[in-house]
Structures are given as structure tokens and as C-alpha cells.
């Protein structure tokens, strides 16, 4: 099969790989019809995540058709059209039993500090991902779900990560009626977080970024107010003035390890790998939120330390909620919202790329060219179908 393969920082290409095999009785093999490149894939692409091995296939957002199932699979059969959460989860460990699927203990041998994720280095379990023609899907009875007939592949692929992650970002903020919510990051996750904040009753939603084309989408898609942080002297002061010096009630950090805004942090964290990620947006969130407010973090960081303003967090009495999204837990409610026309997930999609052009896709997405917000990838056979 054709598959994207990592060749080192900033380098990917498409190679022939064997079609994955059933390795466990509850595995399924899924033929990918649509995949996506995530903002967090860029951390792998830039060499930030430890134990990222040459030859790995990335891609934790994908939908497809079941081609084969293991002997113990009960829920799925060949031919089923499925969407697969980015979490690889067993359904039976301490965390899965409590619906905290992103924290599964039984699927990632390489680390206990994170659950298993498709195509996200050996730190997340060493599984190939879906930027390929086929992918091995463990625990097919637990993770994947049949895609409803009324949901397109383009919308369904946003269900595998970005949409539920944005929703959980807002949910972890414990938003109350009338709250002022500031969302850092106008990528797909930030846009969905802003939209979700309104669903949860926010009074004002402000999105912060440095890319004007994404802020325009925040206005049109998420009906949010926007701030380009390169155009203000002091972002924290601006938020304080906007909130009559109280501070925001909730700040949602949807940027993660490659937050820009400080050349020093870009160098120290992203280039020299001295930190798990640039904490610029996280520190802004801590500073912009009011005392005893909530900071919700869905941005992805690497496993080593980052220079976070923890003293401020303590002194301000903040609640900090953070986690990878437990995707399938949010599906029923989100499917209702999409079916009722409240959210159109594929509205954030800006590019559709054949798998063979994935190197250009990564470069475009990483360099933010051509007003790229969310690129989808499809194997040639899927595009031809």
C-alpha cells in the first residue's frame, strides 16, 4: 500500500509499505477514505516529540471502510463505513471504564503519561497512523463507530479529533451563563472551542491568534470577537481592560507546543528542544484569566517541562483542567448538534490533497501558506471513487 513515511524533521515522503495485518483478535483493518493533518502532527514533523522513528506513518484523524476483522470482533464487519477516534482504547482499564478513553492504560507500553494514539510516535504506543491506504485499528469493538448515512466523510473526519477536542476544551472550562471566554488559537480546535463556548452559554467569546485569515474564520464560523496579538502592545492588558479589569472567566489554550509570540521561547522550546513546548499561549491564558477562574488546556505539549508561570496560577487560585480528548464519549451529543445544523464541521476544511502530495501538504500547513486552516488527505483510490 502507499503510505506517508516520516524521514526526519521537516521531511516526509510516500512509500510502499505492506498492508497492516491483524495482530490481535479484536483488531480491524480499515481502508482509509479520508484522513487529515492535525496541528499536533506538526510537532512530530518538526521533531519535537521524543521517540519519533524514521519510517513511521503519521495520521490520527481518519475515516474509512472495514476491510478485515479479527476473530473476536462483534460490532463491525467488512464493508462498514467507520470513523475512528484518535485514542486507541481498550474499554476495560481503570480509565476507559470511567469513560476517560484518552488515558487508556492497556494500549501504550512506551509511556504511562499518555494514552495510545494512532501515528503519534512510540511515545504514544508505536502504531502507524491513517495517512495511508490502510490502517490497523486495535479494539475495533471499543473505538470505531459506524458513520451515519447522513454524515459525509469530510464532516466525519473532523469528528475523530478536532471537533470533540474543541468541545471538550470548552467543557473543561466549566462555562456558566454569561462568562467571558478567551480562546487562544484560531486553528480548527480553537474554532470548535469558540463555537462550543457559545453552546455552553458564554456571554462573550474572544479568539486570539496572529494569522488574520484564521481570525476572519473565527468571526464568520464561530461568531467570535478576535484579537491579532501582533497588533497589540500587551495582550494581557487588553483583556483586562475588555473585562473591566476582572479578567476572563475562562481561558482555553488551543495552541500547544509551537506557540509563537516570543522569539526566545521559539528558540528554546521548538528549535533547541530545551522545553516540552513553547508556553507562550499557556502563560497568556494564566495571566488573562481572572483570579479563581479556569484555564482549560487542550493544546498538545511534549513530555518534558515547560517554563509555565505556575506561581501566578497558584496565587490566582486557578482551576487548571487539561487532557487529551476522550473522543467517543462526546460523539452522541455532537452528532445531535451537527444533525440539527448547529455546527458544520467541514466548514474549517480549506484543502483536499492527494496522498502522493502529502509532503507539499505538510509544508503548506506548517508554513501557513495559502490560507490553510485544515488540510484533508485522501489516498488516490478514495479520490477516484
Amino acid at each position, binding site marked *: 500500500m502507499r503510505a506517508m513515511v516520516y*524521514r526526519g524533521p521537516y521531511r516526509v515522503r510516500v512509500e510502499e509499505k505492506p498492508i497492516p495485518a491483524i495482530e490481535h483478535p479484536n483488531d480491524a483493518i480499515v481502508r482509509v477514505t479520508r484522513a487529515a493533518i492535525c496541528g499536533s502532527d506538526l510537532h512530530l514533523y518538526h521533531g519535537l516529540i521524543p521517540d519519533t522513528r524514521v519510517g513511521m506513518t503519521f495520521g490520527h484523524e481518519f475515516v474509512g471502510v472495514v476491510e478485515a476483522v479479527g476473530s*473476536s470482533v462483534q460490532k463491525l464487519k467488512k464493508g462498514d463505513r467507520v470513523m475512528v477516534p484518535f485514542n486507541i482504547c481498550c474499554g476495560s482499564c481503570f480509565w476507559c471504564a470511567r469513560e476517560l478513553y484518552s488515558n487508556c492504560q492497556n494500549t501504550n507500553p*512506551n509511556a504511562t503519561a499518555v494514552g495510545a494514539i494512532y501515528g503519534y510516535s512510540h511515545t504514544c504506543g508505536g502504531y502507524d497512523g491513517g495517512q495511508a491506504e490502510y490502517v490497523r485499528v486495535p479494539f475495533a469493538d471499543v473505538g470505531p463507530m459506524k458513520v451515519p448515512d447522513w454524515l459525509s466523510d469530510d464532516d466525519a473526519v473532523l469528528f475523530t479529533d478536532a471537533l470533540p477536542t474543541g468541545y471538550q476544551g470548552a467543557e473543561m472550562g466549566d462555562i456558566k451563563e454569561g462568562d467571558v471566554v478567551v480562546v487562544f488559537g484560531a486553528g480548527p480546535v480553537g474554532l470548535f472551542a469558540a463555537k462550543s463556548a457559545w453552546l455552553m452559554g458564554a456571554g*462573550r467569546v474572544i479568539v486570539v491568534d496572529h494569522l488574520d485569515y484564521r481570525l476572519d474564520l473565527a468571526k464568520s464560523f464561530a461568531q467570535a470577537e478576535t484579537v491579532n496579538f501582533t497588533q497589540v502592545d500587551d495582550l494581557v492588558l487588553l483583556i483586562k481592560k475588555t473585562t473591566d*479589569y476582572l479578567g476572563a472567566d475562562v481561558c482555553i489554550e488551543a495552541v500547544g507546543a509551537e506557540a509563537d509570540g516570543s522569539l526566545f521561547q521559539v528558540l528554546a522550546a521548538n*528549535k533547541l528542544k530545551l522545553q516540552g513546548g513553547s508556553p507562550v499561549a499557556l502563560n497568556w491564558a494564566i495571566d488573562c484569566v481572572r483570579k479563581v477562574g479556569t484555564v482549560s488546556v487542550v493544546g498538545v505539549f511534549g513530555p518534558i517541562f515547560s517554563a509555565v508561570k505556575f506561581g501566578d496560577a497558584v496565587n490566582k487560585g486557578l482551576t487548571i483542567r487539561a487532557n487529551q480528548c476522550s473522543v467517543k464519549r462526546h460523539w452522541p451529543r455532537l452528532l445531535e448538534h451537527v444533525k440539527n445544523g448547529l455546527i458544520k464541521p467541514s466548514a474549517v476544511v480549506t484543502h483536499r490533497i492527494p496522498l502522493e502530495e502529502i509532503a507539499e501538504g*505538510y509544508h503548506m500547513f506548517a508554513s501557513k501558506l495559502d490560507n490553510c486552516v485544515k488540510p484533508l488527505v485522501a489516498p488516490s483510490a478514495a479520490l477516484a471513487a
Partner: protein
Amino acid sequence: MAYTAEKPRIAPPRSVLETSIVGWGVDLDPRNRPGVPKENFNPRGTGAHWDFPERQIPRYRREMSTEHKFLTPVFGTVCPPKGLSGVLRRFAYKLSEGRLAHWNLLVLADRVDVIESRIGALFRLRPDNAVSEIGLKAEIERHGLRSRLGQRRADTKHLPIDILFFTGTTLATVAAIAAAGIGVARLASARRKRGLARLLG
């Protein structure tokens, strides 16, 4: 205001939000939010029909975190550790996740892996191509100049540093090959001189 008991009123009234914002408030009640409460004990509702999963059989000595009691029942099998990078990785996995050295060794192994893989690709006659793998065609096809010039972006400031870093591994590979070549040449030369000296007595 913040200096008195009342919360500052800076948001529009509910009546305005309900009519102007699509879907406003449908999940205002936390009982409608699927992630509330955070922990919802529901072991029969996950889809699992086992208490502990059947074990996958490892085909090689699978590396694992020291913070696991045993190898997880299911695990990824791609890219087993190999070469010098593999030695570094196996050593890194002797240290717990709480040790900085664990992660730094893995990052070092990643860099060694890249150099080993570039050399290996040459021998397999499938050499890496910097231009196509970096996707530089996108700079033309996807309007690199227009996307950056005249924009209020924060990242254009560090573009020269970005370019330096993404050509860095190529430079490191070339340096490694050059150093190895020079070393081999010197060894061969020294052996030739010793052989000549023995011949001349």
C-alpha cells in the same frame, strides 16, 4: 466592577445572545455535557466484552516504560529499534518517564536514527530527496511569498532560523559521512605505511 461585589456587566443580555448566536445555550445545563461529571463509571457501556483484554504476542523484545507493571496487552509493532539508535532507545527505556535523561536520550536516538536512515537509504538505492521531502514545491504552488509578505504574522521573524534547522540534519548527515570517509582513508593510509615499513625491514 471588580472592586465591588457585583460582577462587571460586559456581555450582551441573554435575549440578544439567544437570537444572534446559533445554538446559544443548548448545553448551558451541565447535564447536557457528555464529559460531566469527569469520571463516569460505565464499564459495560464501553463496547468491551472482556475484563482484561487478550494478549497480543510480541515478535521481538518489546521496549516498555519502567512505570508499567507488565507489557500492555496490545501494543504497536512498527519500526522496531535498530542500529545505534536502537541501542540508545533500549538504554533510555531503562530509565523512568520521570527522568529527563529518558526523554533526552530518545531525542538523541531520533537524530541518530535520521542519519542512519539517510545512509541506509543510499545503500537501498532509494536516497532521500531534500527538495521533494520538504515539499518545497508548495512555496510556489501555494503562494509562499504572498502568504508571508505584508501579513501581520509572528512567525516570519524566525524564518531564517527555521531554514537553518530544517537543513540541519542534511548538513549533519553529510558531515557524518565525510568524517567516516576521512577516518577510513586515514586508517588505510596508516596500514599501507606500516606494511611498507615492515617490507623495508
